[in-house]
């Protein structure tokens, strides 16, 4: 018994675990539980039927009450296992419940009605994934439309942002021109103007440009970000100027130098920025809430928010939709975790 224990408690330094190490692991495990359980619970719940969701106390896994169709009854009848009394051990179908007594029948012998105290039976259930919650999203709700709106905004905004920001970063890192410092200060200045404090005039400008209630009204205003320009400029500064000079000797145009040399060499920084942009746009809420007021223009985030008002009681669809909304981000996270962590740490967020 000693050896696995030794193995488990060994540390990198070879010393035994100190009580502080125990405390550390305890804290981290609590953290894992707190961070993951709500999400796991959401996913599990999204596979429960509406009836199962109303149950209290809730069960961990999604269950469905087993039913049986008996001749002479239109509806399938719920099945119960009898745990006490004279019918102990039998599996009976419930006709109706009157107070503390239930009228039941044996599916094999549907003629005879039996009376059972409800304290003497328990539900017969089986593990079932209620995939109809998800199927319903595609049928009854315009899920695909919202998904498309979100995807369109995310992809277009990211592309435009990468293009304009990388062009600006190229100019600011590789050219000596009068007014460069002024432009840099201007870019820093925009750091101080988050969207949240210019909502009213931004709304006017977007309306005047005819982009109110249009996806472009969400895409264009957020396309130029000071963060993106700085991130790319910092990276491009590390690309040696000799490469550019060599290309100019070969009579390459400046535009060609930009997209054939600088862009490919900045790929790591561009990848980081792309991931951040995808995340920002996909999760964006306040600005779309102002610009997009018609439900056919809603993004997933807006649809989710407005449904939680409308479907106060219908959690099954809401939960399934929440899961589908977080899924793309969860996938991006799983595959590109390293990029995201370094990207966010180097830009200081938004």
């Amino acid at each position, binding site marked *: 018994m000693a050896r696995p224990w030794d193995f488990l408690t060994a540390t990198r*330094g070879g010393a035994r675990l100190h009580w502080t*190490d125990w405390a550390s692991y305890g*804290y*981290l495990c609590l*953290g894992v539980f707190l*961070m993951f359980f*709500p*999400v796991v*619970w*959401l996913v599990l*719940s999204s596979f429960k039927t509406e009836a199962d969701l109303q149950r*209290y*106390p*809730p069960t961990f896994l999604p269950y469905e009450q087993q039913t049986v169709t008996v001749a002479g009854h239109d509806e399938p009848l719920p099945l119960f296992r009898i745990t006490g009394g004279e019918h102990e051990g039998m599996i009976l179908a419930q006709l109706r419940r009157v107070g503390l007594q239930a009228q039941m029948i044996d599916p094999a012998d549907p003629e005879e009605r039996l009376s059972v105290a409800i304290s003497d039976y328990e539900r017969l259930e089986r593990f079932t994934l209620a995939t109809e919650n998800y199927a319903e999203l595609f049928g009854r709700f315009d899920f695909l439309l919202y998904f498309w709106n979100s995807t369109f905004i995310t992809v277009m905004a990211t592309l435009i942002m990468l293009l*304009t920001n990388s*062009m600006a970063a*190229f*100019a*600011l890192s590789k*050219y*000596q*021109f009068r007014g*460069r410092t002024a432009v840099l200060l*201007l870019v820093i200045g*925009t*750091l*101080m*103007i988050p969207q*949240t*404090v*210019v*909502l*009213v*005039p*931004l*709304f*006017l*400008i977007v309306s005047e440009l005819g982009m109110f209630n249009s996806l472009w009204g969400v895409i264009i*205003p957020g*396309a*130029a970000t000071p963060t993106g320009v700085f991130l790319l400029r910092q990276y491009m500064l590390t690309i040696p100027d000799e490469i550019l000079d060599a290309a100019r000797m070969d009579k390459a*145009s*400046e*535009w060609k130098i*930009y997209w054939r040399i600088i862009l*490919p060499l900045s*790929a790591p920084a561009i990848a980081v920025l792309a991931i951040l942009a995808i995340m920002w746009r996909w*999760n964006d*809420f306040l600005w779309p809430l102002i610009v997009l007021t018609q439900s056919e223009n809603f993004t997933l*985030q807006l649809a*989710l*928010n407005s449904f*939680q008002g409308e479907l106060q009681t219908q*959690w099954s669809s809401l939960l399934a939709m*929440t899961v589908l909304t977080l899924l793309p*981000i*969860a996938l991006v*996270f799983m595959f590109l975790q390293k990029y995201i962590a370094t990207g966010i*740490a180097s830009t200081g*967020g938004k």
Partner: protein
Amino acid sequence: MAQRGAGDGLALRVIAPVMRVVEIPMIGLQRVLGINRLAWVFLLPNLLLFGLFAFLPVILNVAYATTGGANVLLEARPQIGLDNFERLLDCANHLDPNTCREDKFWRAVWNTLWFVTLQVGIMVGFSLLTAIVLNGKIRARGFFRSVFFFPVLLSPVVVALIWKWMLQRNGVLNAFLDWAGIGGYNWLVDANWAFAWSVFLSVWAHMGFYTLILLAGLQAIPRDVYEAATMDRASPWRVFRRITLPLLAPTMLVVLVLALIKGVQTFDEVYAFTGGGPGTATTFIIQYIYEEGFAGSPRLFGLSAAASLLVAAVLVVLTLVQLWVNRKNVNG
């Protein structure tokens, strides 16, 4: 890093023709302007966006704040000078929103102040603790780090719904409390609890980000400083007080300022979580701006703009502090 995968090939096939078409006018411009002035052409799209969607709005915001009425078109709005600001700031006693003309504004201000104080304090505290634990001799550090970081990526609405589902009347938390004999509670109907849970939710969603920055700061502290301390048989607490905290102070400052800037702007997750309620218990300043300008009727754009100028003033100060701190860190 720059491997060429199938995806790159596809992207190139789509982008390359576009880039080649753009090259034709760009070569012309290069001939006319010369290489260095061509920089402005590269800057143009970005500057245009900045100008149109960042600087112009700031100027227009002042114009809105000094006009009244419910019309969105500036030329149709009557000049009213500083009336909007007077209306916002008119209070018999600023500590008591009930005595204010625009009581909702002051409720939002006080809610935001309380929220920011609690949220930033708790969040930075837990981020620091988590970063220190992760910086110790821990197996699977990468795994634990990403666990704490994961919620940062979730959208505010998703975060709000996840916790709404956890906390609802016959939800899993109440089931647990019932089982433990404490008894459940209808959390979001109670003003104080709704506020407390909003703070919790916000800490839950964002602490991974600050943990990441603090962990990077901790890892930048040279190991030999700690080794020297161990040789001197300094107690862990002493090491923390005398070595870790002072050396981490610049990072802490960055984290604090960043958290404050974001905290003041809190809207999305709490709005989706409680809708600002019950009553106005969780209505923050950005929600006030949003509701006065866009959700209410009549739409009080002037009041909304005036309030956002006040928030902007706070943010400008905080951002200047942030830039100053960053500069000091880079130089120091």
